[in-house]
């Protein structure tokens, strides 16, 4: 590249003409996960609003059941460990996928999904039990905000499981191509982020909610 070409803006050589620094735009392997990281952070802002709503309404029980009467810490402990292990195994799948190992990648992804399903089943069981006892979302402002916050997280996990299924199908059908690896990286960011949000939920909703 000649310096003349750079100064008249025909290349990405100069910072003045492109506004993108001396190297031009980043490669897709950086830009795509970075953009997804921004989405995940905005999702956390969404959850912060739901957390704030919950914290405001937690005592507005309208004479109905309170946090101490509803929540079962043992179930929550199992949920927490299942989701944490799922996040960990998802990282192992990422490691195997990077080395184009089909058997280990699919195996770890199946395990990620199964652990996610364990989490989701326990949550569904808990919701069904609460609604059966007359503690559904329409009972009080506290329960409305509880089902919105925890249900929104559960909906994210459900969407993540569907995404996980399509990732497995894509690796199976198309192999370890760069753009599919990028999608798996985005999925792993999403999955780890859901675990981060769950840390907030089990601490604020379940543990602080059931202190004596």
């Amino acid at each position, binding site marked *: 590249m000649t310096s003349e070409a750079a100064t008249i803006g025909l290349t990405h050589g100069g910072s003045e003409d492109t506004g993108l620094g001396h*190297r*031009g735009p*980043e*490669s897709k*392997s*950086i830009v*795509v*996960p*970075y953009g997804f*990281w*921004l989405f995940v*952070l*905005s999702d*956390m*802002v969404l959850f*912060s*609003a739901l*957390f*704030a*709503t919950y*914290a*405001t309404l937690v*005592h*507005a*029980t*309208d*004479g109905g059941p309170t946090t101490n009467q509803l929540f079962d*810490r043992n179930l929550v*402990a199992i949920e*927490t*460990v299942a989701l*944490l*292990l799922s*996040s*960990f195994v998802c*990282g*192992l799948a*990422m*490691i195997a996928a*990077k*080395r184009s190992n089909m058997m280990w990648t699919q195996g770890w992804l199946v395990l990620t999904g199964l652990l996610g399903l364990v989490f989701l089943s326990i949550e569904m069981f808990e919701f069904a039990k609460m609604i059966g006892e007359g503690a559904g979302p329409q009972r*009080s*402002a506290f329960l409305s905000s509880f089902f919105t916050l925890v249900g929104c997280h559960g909906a994210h996990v459900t969407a993540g499981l569907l995404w996980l299924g399509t990732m497995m199908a894509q690796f199976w059908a198309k192999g370890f191509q760069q753009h599919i690896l990028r999608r798996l*990286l985005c999925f*792993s*960011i999403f999955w*780890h*982020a859901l*675990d*981060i949000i769950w*840390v*907030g939920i*089990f*601490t*604020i909703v379940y*543990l*602080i909610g*059931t*202190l*004596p």
Partner: protein
Amino acid sequence: MTEDEDHLLDVAPGAPHDNLFSETLLYIVGLALALVLTGVSFWVASTSVLWGPGVATGLVVLAIAQIGIHLVFFLHITSGPDNTNNVLALAFGVLIVFLVMIGTIWIMGHMNANVGMSPEMMNLQTQH
């Protein structure tokens, strides 16, 4: 500019390392630390050894520590120069999250305490 050269200058969040052993170890260490912090959280919440009024604050501190563990060991957010963009985006996200949460809890707590209501009004309210 090749992909390899790019990796020296910037990395994506959650991007894997090059060495199989070191990156697996990173996840295992992260998992172990997260499990310990989770266990401590559940223990702190159930024990009566600790000073009661401080437990809730302690739990929040433990949760923030665990979120840090997840960010470092699972999402590979570091303080290195190749991570500046990721860290800046995270910092902005954390700022907004804290503004929304602390702002809401602060304002709504004061509203709840200071906006007095007559007993007749209280009966119509669904609160308490």
